[in-house]
């Protein structure tokens, strides 16, 4: 495998954003995902190869360690930040259509709820898995999900809630989305939720962690 891509995978896995970043301490002073992505493009490596053989394997590796309890939220977020930095360089190729995303994922924290760490973690992990992510932020009403689906009708939707008071608001969002876009798949997540609640409100999938969301979405793509 290409040496630049191997290093890139390592940088994503360990959250090395750029040369300036002091994290991880063992890679202090070394170039990071930012510089290596530029180097890879300059070396003529196809953007699709950079994404599929350099970036995504790094996110998969850190995601696996997160699921196994070997790394925690801070390290996962650093990996996602490194991934986002790398993706900036690939953006023109996404826009030109040269690099295809796996699909589009619209995500937001349900209206009434301002918590975003879980939503951010899922958004960054799904993006790192090769999906285009449209992050609607927090306190998102049904109309905003519907408007965005109008622009990206083949998207999957993710809704997050942290509070027991706001999880109830998910039901109307799911109902409104399903009324207008019955085939849209809706994922939900958040500390007080479970599969039973997911089934009760008519959502398609409850994910207890970001990797669960990625696995479900990737599976949709294969259907």
């Amino acid at each position, binding site marked *: 495998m290409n040496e630049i891509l191997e290093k890139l995978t390592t940088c994503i896995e360990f959250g090395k954003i750029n040369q300036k970043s002091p994290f991880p301490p063992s890679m202090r002073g070394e170039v990071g995902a930012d510089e290596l992505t530029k180097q890879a493009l300059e070396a003529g490596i196809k953007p699709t190869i950079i994404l599929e053989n350099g970036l995504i394997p790094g996110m998969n590796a850190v995601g696996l360690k997160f699921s196994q309890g070997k790394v925690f*939220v801070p*390290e996962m977020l650093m990996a996602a930040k490194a991934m986002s930095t790398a993706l900036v360089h690939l953006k023109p190729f996404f826009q030109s259509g040269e690099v295809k995303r796996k699909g589009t994922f619209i995500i937001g924290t349900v209206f009434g*709820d301002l918590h975003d760490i879980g939503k951010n973690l899922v958004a960054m992990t799904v993006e790192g898995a090769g999906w285009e992510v449209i992050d609607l932020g927090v306190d998102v009403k049904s109309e905003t999900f519907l408007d965005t689906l109008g622009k990206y009708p083949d998207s999957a939707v993710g809704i997050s809630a942290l509070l027991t*008071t706001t999880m109830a608001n998910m039901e109307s969002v799911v109902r409104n989305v399903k009324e207008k876009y019955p085939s849209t798949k809706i994922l939900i997540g958040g500390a007080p939720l479970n599969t039973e609640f997911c089934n009760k409100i008519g959502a398609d999938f409850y994910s207890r962690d970001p990797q669960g969301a990625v696995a479900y979405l990737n599976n949709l793509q294969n259907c």
Partner: protein
Amino acid sequence: MKMDMTGWRDSIFTNPEKRAVPVMTYPGLQLAGKSVLDMVTKEEVQYECVKALSEKYPAVGAITLIMDLSVEAEAFGSPVNFSENEIPTVSKRLIDSFEQVVNLKIPAIGDGRTKIHLNAARLAAENITTRPTFGGIIGPYSLAGRLYDITEMMTAILIEPEGAHELLSICTSFLKGYALAFKNAGCNGVLIAEPAAGLLADYQCEEFSSQYVKQIVDFVQDDNFMVVLHNCGNTVSLVESMLKTGAAGFHFGNAVDMCEILPQVPSNRLVFGNLDPAGVIKNGTPEIIKAKTTELLTRTSQYNNFVISSGCDIPPGTTIQNIDAFFEAIAEYNKD
């Protein structure tokens, strides 16, 4: 009212009957006919609710005041969203770089709504004298997350640890004073809610949470005032770090199996937990609640330091019938 909390703790160890200390104030809203907004903005409403609950449920082992995790950040100046029936939430970060930490002014005790919660605590401690009263405060790392943004605070501990420590020191200075104010208001203890630390690795938890919680514990805890540390994350690997705070009690959320926690805690420290407050206590049927309560008591029966509780604050909208079911199950278990 002053109370021998060491004696209270020892009575739990020696009494074969299981004690229950659910973290509940919101269910009192139904008894008092008030809204969440009333409770978080009016001291007499908060007092009225806990008083009503204490009278309805004599089996409650201790009174817990509101777990309002926005009040401390609000005192620092953070904007907070309020609504009639939802718990207030910090809506925007107060600082967006650690360089701004030097400009942060440590609030005076009583600033913002802290005076409302302290006055409610005073009323409860003066008038409910049959059981201990616990005030509620946020933990240092969770407060720092509200001021600096929790996602940013998560990565800050890796890339800007010095700045993170600086902010944590300021948060801790305020929280020491706020905890002391609950003590001076007559409370018998304080529950420190540190949920954000539940997302960290054990060594991160120790460096960025536990050492600061310990400062609060050392400042206020004595024979008459007990600190209970609450962490509702996946804390199985964090117990050792939590123990280093020196708190007399530890309160766990429903993300963990208590049978994985209890063997890690020395028998002279209290352990509270951990029925799912949303999935079981709020959304379950009375039959489910009774079954889950009995199951937890049975599985933990060998531990004399275990006190059954909700895994977190029992949410607004939980019916009185469901709270009744929780206490009925405990009464039936103790009868057997």
